[in-house]
Protein backbone atom coordinates (compact mmCIF):
# COMPACT_ATOMS: atom_id res chain seq x y z
CA UNK A 1 0.00 0.00 0.00
CA UNK A 2 1.45 3.36 -0.97
CA UNK A 3 0.76 6.52 0.95
CA UNK A 4 -1.37 9.11 -0.88
CA UNK A 5 0.85 11.79 -2.38
CA UNK A 6 0.88 15.02 -0.39
CA UNK A 7 -0.29 17.99 -2.40
CA UNK A 8 2.01 20.95 -2.47
CA UNK A 9 0.66 24.20 -1.05
CA UNK A 10 0.04 25.77 -4.47
CA UNK A 11 -2.26 22.97 -5.58
CA UNK A 12 -4.34 22.97 -2.39
CA UNK A 13 -7.65 24.88 -2.25
CA UNK A 14 -7.58 28.15 -0.32
CA UNK A 15 -10.48 26.96 1.87
CA UNK A 16 -12.46 23.75 2.27
CA UNK A 17 -15.57 25.50 0.95
CA UNK A 18 -13.85 27.59 -1.71
CA UNK A 19 -12.61 25.34 -4.52
CA UNK A 20 -9.97 27.77 -5.79
CA UNK A 21 -6.34 26.70 -5.72
CA UNK A 22 -3.58 28.87 -4.23
CA UNK A 23 -1.82 28.80 -7.60
CA UNK A 24 -4.89 30.37 -9.26
CA UNK A 25 -5.01 33.13 -6.64
CA UNK A 26 -1.29 33.76 -7.10
CA UNK A 27 -1.64 33.90 -10.87
CA UNK A 28 -4.64 36.22 -10.65
CA UNK A 29 -2.75 38.61 -8.38
CA UNK A 30 0.29 38.50 -10.69
CA UNK A 31 -1.93 39.03 -13.74
CA UNK A 32 -3.60 42.10 -12.21
CA UNK A 33 -0.36 43.55 -10.83
CA UNK A 34 1.69 43.00 -13.99
CA UNK A 35 -1.23 44.12 -16.16
CA UNK A 36 -1.49 47.38 -14.21
CA UNK A 37 2.29 47.81 -14.38
CA UNK A 38 2.26 47.27 -18.14
CA UNK A 39 -0.49 49.85 -18.67
CA UNK A 40 1.59 52.25 -16.58
CA UNK A 41 5.01 51.78 -18.19
CA UNK A 42 4.26 50.90 -21.81
CA UNK A 43 5.70 53.29 -24.32
CA UNK A 44 4.01 51.93 -27.43
CA UNK A 45 1.03 54.17 -28.34
Amino acid at each position, binding site marked *: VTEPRRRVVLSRPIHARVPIRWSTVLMLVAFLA*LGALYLEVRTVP
Partner: protein
Amino acid sequence: VKFQNLTDWLRNGLLPTVVLLLGAVLMARLVAWITHRYRHSLDEQARQTIEAGRAVSEATKRSRAVAQAIEWTVVSLIYFVAGVLALRQLGVPLTTLVAPATVAGVALGFGAQQVVGDLLAGFFLFSERQFGIGDLIRLSQPGQTTGVTGTVEELTLRVTKLRTVTGEFVVVPNSALRQVTNLSKDWSRVVLDIPIRATEDLAAATQVLNQAAGSLADDEAWSGLLLGAPVMSGVETIEVGYVQLRLVVRTLPGRQFEVSRELRYRCAAALQEAGISTAPLADESASAGGRTTP
Protein backbone atom coordinates in the same frame (compact mmCIF):
# COMPACT_ATOMS: atom_id res chain seq x y z
CA VAL B 1 21.50 52.88 -25.87
CA LYS B 2 21.75 49.19 -25.14
CA PHE B 3 20.24 49.69 -21.68
CA GLN B 4 17.42 51.73 -23.22
CA ASN B 5 16.75 48.92 -25.70
CA LEU B 6 16.62 46.39 -22.90
CA THR B 7 14.16 48.41 -20.82
CA ASP B 8 12.03 48.97 -23.93
CA TRP B 9 12.00 45.25 -24.60
CA LEU B 10 11.11 44.52 -20.98
CA ARG B 11 8.28 47.09 -21.08
CA ASN B 12 6.80 46.34 -24.45
CA GLY B 13 7.94 42.76 -25.09
CA LEU B 14 8.41 40.57 -22.06
CA LEU B 15 5.92 42.20 -19.69
CA PRO B 16 2.86 41.96 -22.00
CA THR B 17 3.90 38.42 -22.95
CA VAL B 18 3.92 37.31 -19.32
CA VAL B 19 0.55 39.05 -18.77
CA LEU B 20 -0.81 37.35 -21.88
CA LEU B 21 0.33 33.89 -20.81
CA LEU B 22 -1.00 34.39 -17.29
CA GLY B 23 -4.34 35.51 -18.77
CA ALA B 24 -4.42 32.41 -20.99
CA VAL B 25 -3.80 30.05 -18.07
CA LEU B 26 -6.47 31.83 -15.99
CA MET B 27 -8.97 31.70 -18.85
CA ALA B 28 -8.27 27.99 -19.43
CA ARG B 29 -8.81 27.32 -15.73
CA LEU B 30 -12.08 29.28 -15.82
CA VAL B 31 -13.33 27.22 -18.79
CA ALA B 32 -12.29 24.00 -17.02
CA TRP B 33 -14.03 25.13 -13.84
CA ILE B 34 -17.29 26.02 -15.67
CA THR B 35 -17.42 22.70 -17.56
CA HIS B 36 -16.49 20.83 -14.38
CA ARG B 37 -19.41 22.47 -12.56
CA TYR B 38 -21.75 21.62 -15.44
CA ARG B 39 -20.57 18.00 -15.57
CA HIS B 40 -20.86 17.72 -11.78
CA SER B 41 -24.50 18.90 -11.94
CA LEU B 42 -25.20 16.36 -14.72
CA ASP B 43 -23.57 13.59 -12.65
CA GLU B 44 -25.69 14.55 -9.66
CA GLN B 45 -28.81 14.47 -11.84
CA ALA B 46 -27.81 11.07 -13.23
CA ARG B 47 -27.11 9.70 -9.74
CA GLN B 48 -30.57 10.77 -8.54
CA THR B 49 -32.17 9.26 -11.65
CA ILE B 50 -30.39 5.92 -11.10
CA GLU B 51 -31.32 5.93 -7.40
CA ALA B 52 -34.96 6.48 -8.38
CA GLY B 53 -34.72 3.34 -10.54
CA ARG B 54 -35.03 5.18 -13.86
CA ALA B 55 -32.67 5.22 -16.82
CA VAL B 56 -30.35 8.16 -17.44
CA SER B 57 -31.54 9.97 -20.57
CA GLU B 58 -29.53 9.85 -23.78
CA ALA B 59 -29.47 13.66 -23.80
CA THR B 60 -27.74 13.76 -20.39
CA LYS B 61 -25.09 11.24 -21.43
CA ARG B 62 -24.45 13.16 -24.63
CA SER B 63 -24.36 16.55 -22.89
CA ARG B 64 -21.68 15.27 -20.52
CA ALA B 65 -19.56 13.97 -23.37
CA VAL B 66 -20.01 17.17 -25.39
CA ALA B 67 -19.06 19.31 -22.35
CA GLN B 68 -15.81 17.36 -22.07
CA ALA B 69 -15.06 17.75 -25.77
CA ILE B 70 -15.85 21.48 -25.71
CA GLU B 71 -13.55 21.97 -22.72
CA TRP B 72 -10.72 20.16 -24.51
CA THR B 73 -11.23 22.16 -27.72
CA VAL B 74 -11.60 25.58 -26.08
CA VAL B 75 -8.57 25.09 -23.79
CA SER B 76 -6.44 23.96 -26.76
CA LEU B 77 -7.61 26.99 -28.75
CA ILE B 78 -6.83 29.41 -25.89
CA TYR B 79 -3.26 28.08 -25.56
CA PHE B 80 -2.74 28.14 -29.33
CA VAL B 81 -3.92 31.75 -29.72
CA ALA B 82 -1.95 32.84 -26.64
CA GLY B 83 1.17 31.16 -28.03
CA VAL B 84 0.85 32.96 -31.39
CA LEU B 85 0.19 36.33 -29.73
CA ALA B 86 3.10 35.84 -27.32
CA LEU B 87 5.48 35.12 -30.21
CA ARG B 88 4.27 38.26 -31.97
CA GLN B 89 4.69 40.28 -28.79
CA LEU B 90 8.26 39.05 -28.40
CA GLY B 91 9.01 40.34 -31.86
CA VAL B 92 9.21 37.00 -33.64
CA PRO B 93 8.13 37.75 -37.25
CA LEU B 94 5.25 35.33 -37.84
CA THR B 95 5.17 35.86 -41.62
CA THR B 96 8.71 34.52 -41.96
CA LEU B 97 7.65 31.48 -39.98
CA VAL B 98 5.05 30.50 -42.59
CA ALA B 99 7.47 28.54 -44.79
CA PRO B 100 9.19 26.61 -41.97
CA ALA B 101 5.77 26.09 -40.35
CA THR B 102 4.48 24.55 -43.58
CA VAL B 103 7.42 22.13 -43.74
CA ALA B 104 7.04 21.35 -40.05
CA GLY B 105 3.29 20.93 -40.59
CA VAL B 106 3.82 18.39 -43.35
CA ALA B 107 6.40 16.49 -41.27
CA LEU B 108 4.11 16.62 -38.26
CA GLY B 109 1.18 15.59 -40.45
CA PHE B 110 2.95 12.38 -41.46
CA GLY B 111 3.92 11.66 -37.88
CA ALA B 112 0.63 12.70 -36.34
CA GLN B 113 -1.81 11.35 -38.90
CA GLN B 114 -2.94 8.84 -36.27
CA VAL B 115 -3.82 11.73 -33.93
CA VAL B 116 -5.67 13.57 -36.71
CA GLY B 117 -7.54 10.34 -37.48
CA ASP B 118 -8.46 10.01 -33.79
CA LEU B 119 -9.79 13.59 -33.69
CA LEU B 120 -11.87 13.12 -36.84
CA ALA B 121 -13.22 9.80 -35.55
CA GLY B 122 -14.06 11.54 -32.26
CA PHE B 123 -15.91 14.28 -34.11
CA PHE B 124 -18.12 11.75 -35.92
CA LEU B 125 -18.58 9.82 -32.71
CA PHE B 126 -20.11 12.93 -31.14
CA SER B 127 -22.11 14.04 -34.15
CA GLU B 128 -23.64 10.60 -34.75
CA ARG B 129 -24.49 10.11 -31.06
CA GLN B 130 -23.14 6.56 -31.03
CA PHE B 131 -22.76 6.39 -27.25
CA GLY B 132 -22.39 8.66 -24.25
CA ILE B 133 -20.75 8.69 -20.85
CA GLY B 134 -22.24 6.01 -18.58
CA ASP B 135 -23.21 3.76 -21.48
CA LEU B 136 -22.24 0.10 -21.40
CA ILE B 137 -20.49 -0.69 -24.68
CA ARG B 138 -18.61 -3.56 -26.28
CA LEU B 139 -15.66 -2.88 -28.58
CA SER B 140 -14.90 -5.61 -31.10
CA GLN B 141 -13.76 -6.34 -34.62
CA PRO B 142 -16.50 -6.11 -37.29
CA GLY B 143 -18.66 -9.21 -37.37
CA GLN B 144 -17.47 -10.49 -33.99
CA THR B 145 -19.38 -10.59 -30.73
CA THR B 146 -16.40 -10.91 -28.39
CA GLY B 147 -14.27 -7.97 -27.32
CA VAL B 148 -13.81 -5.50 -24.49
CA THR B 149 -17.01 -4.65 -22.62
CA GLY B 150 -17.15 -1.75 -20.19
CA THR B 151 -18.83 1.42 -19.00
CA VAL B 152 -17.76 4.65 -20.71
CA GLU B 153 -16.10 6.83 -18.05
CA GLU B 154 -14.59 9.52 -20.21
CA LEU B 155 -14.98 10.58 -23.80
CA THR B 156 -12.76 13.10 -25.55
CA LEU B 157 -12.27 13.89 -29.23
CA ARG B 158 -9.11 11.73 -29.18
CA VAL B 159 -9.77 8.77 -26.86
CA THR B 160 -12.55 6.76 -25.23
CA LYS B 161 -11.94 5.49 -21.69
CA LEU B 162 -13.79 2.42 -20.40
CA ARG B 163 -14.03 0.64 -17.06
CA THR B 164 -14.57 -3.11 -17.44
CA VAL B 165 -16.68 -5.19 -15.08
CA THR B 166 -13.48 -6.46 -13.41
CA GLY B 167 -12.31 -2.89 -12.77
CA GLU B 168 -9.75 -2.62 -15.56
CA PHE B 169 -9.42 0.83 -17.08
CA VAL B 170 -9.15 0.65 -20.87
CA VAL B 171 -8.13 3.60 -23.06
CA VAL B 172 -8.85 3.26 -26.78
CA PRO B 173 -7.98 5.86 -29.44
CA ASN B 174 -11.16 6.81 -31.29
CA SER B 175 -9.76 5.80 -34.69
CA ALA B 176 -9.27 2.25 -33.33
CA LEU B 177 -12.99 1.86 -32.61
CA ARG B 178 -14.16 -0.53 -35.31
CA GLN B 179 -17.44 -2.06 -34.15
CA VAL B 180 -19.12 -0.52 -31.13
CA THR B 181 -22.07 -2.38 -29.61
CA ASN B 182 -24.10 -0.20 -27.26
CA LEU B 183 -25.63 -2.47 -24.62
CA SER B 184 -27.57 0.31 -22.91
CA LYS B 185 -29.24 2.39 -25.60
CA ASP B 186 -32.96 3.12 -25.07
CA TRP B 187 -33.78 -0.40 -23.83
CA SER B 188 -32.18 -3.80 -23.24
CA ARG B 189 -33.38 -7.37 -23.37
CA VAL B 190 -32.76 -10.48 -21.31
CA VAL B 191 -32.81 -13.73 -23.29
CA LEU B 192 -32.63 -16.89 -21.17
CA ASP B 193 -32.38 -20.32 -22.78
CA ILE B 194 -33.29 -22.81 -20.08
CA PRO B 195 -32.44 -26.49 -20.67
CA ILE B 196 -35.14 -29.02 -19.75
CA ARG B 197 -34.50 -32.78 -19.82
CA ALA B 198 -36.17 -34.33 -22.86
CA THR B 199 -38.30 -36.71 -20.77
CA GLU B 200 -39.84 -33.93 -18.63
CA ASP B 201 -43.37 -32.57 -19.15
CA LEU B 202 -42.75 -29.41 -21.22
CA ALA B 203 -46.17 -27.90 -20.48
CA ALA B 204 -45.53 -28.21 -16.75
CA ALA B 205 -42.02 -26.78 -17.14
CA THR B 206 -43.39 -23.85 -19.14
CA GLN B 207 -46.00 -23.17 -16.46
CA VAL B 208 -43.39 -23.28 -13.68
CA LEU B 209 -41.11 -20.90 -15.58
CA ASN B 210 -44.02 -18.57 -16.33
CA GLN B 211 -44.86 -18.43 -12.64
CA ALA B 212 -41.22 -17.79 -11.70
CA ALA B 213 -40.93 -14.99 -14.26
CA GLY B 214 -44.30 -13.58 -13.18
CA SER B 215 -43.09 -13.44 -9.56
CA LEU B 216 -40.24 -11.20 -10.71
CA ALA B 217 -42.64 -8.87 -12.51
CA ASP B 218 -44.86 -8.71 -9.39
CA ASP B 219 -41.91 -7.98 -7.09
CA GLU B 220 -41.78 -4.22 -6.39
CA ALA B 221 -38.00 -4.32 -6.08
CA TRP B 222 -37.67 -5.61 -9.65
CA SER B 223 -40.77 -4.48 -11.53
CA GLY B 224 -39.30 -0.96 -11.93
CA LEU B 225 -36.45 -2.39 -13.99
CA LEU B 226 -38.75 -4.21 -16.43
CA LEU B 227 -40.27 -2.62 -19.53
CA GLY B 228 -42.93 -5.30 -20.00
CA ALA B 229 -44.01 -8.69 -18.76
CA PRO B 230 -41.60 -11.62 -19.23
CA VAL B 231 -42.63 -13.78 -22.20
CA MET B 232 -42.05 -17.51 -22.69
CA SER B 233 -41.31 -17.73 -26.41
CA GLY B 234 -41.42 -21.54 -26.43
CA VAL B 235 -39.00 -24.27 -27.44
CA GLU B 236 -35.87 -22.69 -28.90
CA THR B 237 -33.83 -25.80 -29.69
CA ILE B 238 -34.17 -29.59 -29.52
CA GLU B 239 -30.88 -31.25 -28.63
CA VAL B 240 -29.87 -34.79 -27.80
CA GLY B 241 -31.20 -35.43 -24.31
CA TYR B 242 -32.72 -31.99 -23.65
CA VAL B 243 -34.70 -29.10 -25.10
CA GLN B 244 -34.21 -25.40 -24.49
CA LEU B 245 -37.11 -23.14 -23.53
CA ARG B 246 -36.62 -19.45 -24.22
CA LEU B 247 -37.68 -16.73 -21.81
CA VAL B 248 -37.49 -13.08 -22.93
CA VAL B 249 -38.02 -9.82 -21.07
CA ARG B 250 -37.28 -6.16 -21.94
CA THR B 251 -35.50 -4.11 -19.28
CA LEU B 252 -34.22 -0.61 -18.66
CA PRO B 253 -30.99 0.07 -20.57
CA GLY B 254 -27.93 -1.41 -18.90
CA ARG B 255 -29.95 -3.27 -16.23
CA GLN B 256 -30.29 -6.54 -18.17
CA PHE B 257 -27.47 -8.30 -16.30
CA GLU B 258 -28.87 -7.95 -12.80
CA VAL B 259 -32.39 -8.84 -14.04
CA SER B 260 -31.07 -11.93 -15.86
CA ARG B 261 -29.22 -13.11 -12.75
CA GLU B 262 -32.34 -12.79 -10.60
CA LEU B 263 -34.51 -14.38 -13.26
CA ARG B 264 -32.07 -17.27 -13.64
CA TYR B 265 -32.05 -17.78 -9.89
CA ARG B 266 -35.85 -17.79 -9.65
CA CYS B 267 -36.24 -20.16 -12.62
CA ALA B 268 -33.63 -22.59 -11.29
CA ALA B 269 -35.20 -22.55 -7.81
CA ALA B 270 -38.74 -23.02 -9.20
CA LEU B 271 -37.68 -25.93 -11.43
CA GLN B 272 -35.84 -27.55 -8.54
CA GLU B 273 -38.87 -27.16 -6.29
CA ALA B 274 -41.19 -28.64 -8.93
CA GLY B 275 -38.82 -31.59 -9.37
CA ILE B 276 -38.18 -30.81 -13.03
CA SER B 277 -34.69 -31.78 -14.11
CA THR B 278 -32.56 -29.54 -16.26
CA ALA B 279 -29.81 -32.11 -16.77
CA PRO B 280 -29.62 -33.84 -20.16
CA LEU B 281 -30.42 -37.53 -20.23
CA ALA B 282 -26.77 -38.54 -20.49
CA ASP B 283 -25.45 -36.05 -17.93
CA GLU B 284 -26.91 -35.95 -14.43
CA SER B 285 -24.50 -33.30 -13.14
CA ALA B 286 -25.65 -30.31 -15.23
CA SER B 287 -27.98 -27.71 -13.79
CA ALA B 288 -30.11 -24.78 -14.93
CA GLY B 289 -28.16 -22.23 -16.93
CA GLY B 290 -28.61 -19.57 -19.55
CA ARG B 291 -26.66 -17.17 -21.63
CA THR B 292 -23.44 -16.02 -19.97
CA THR B 293 -23.36 -12.29 -19.29
CA PRO B 294 -20.73 -10.02 -17.79
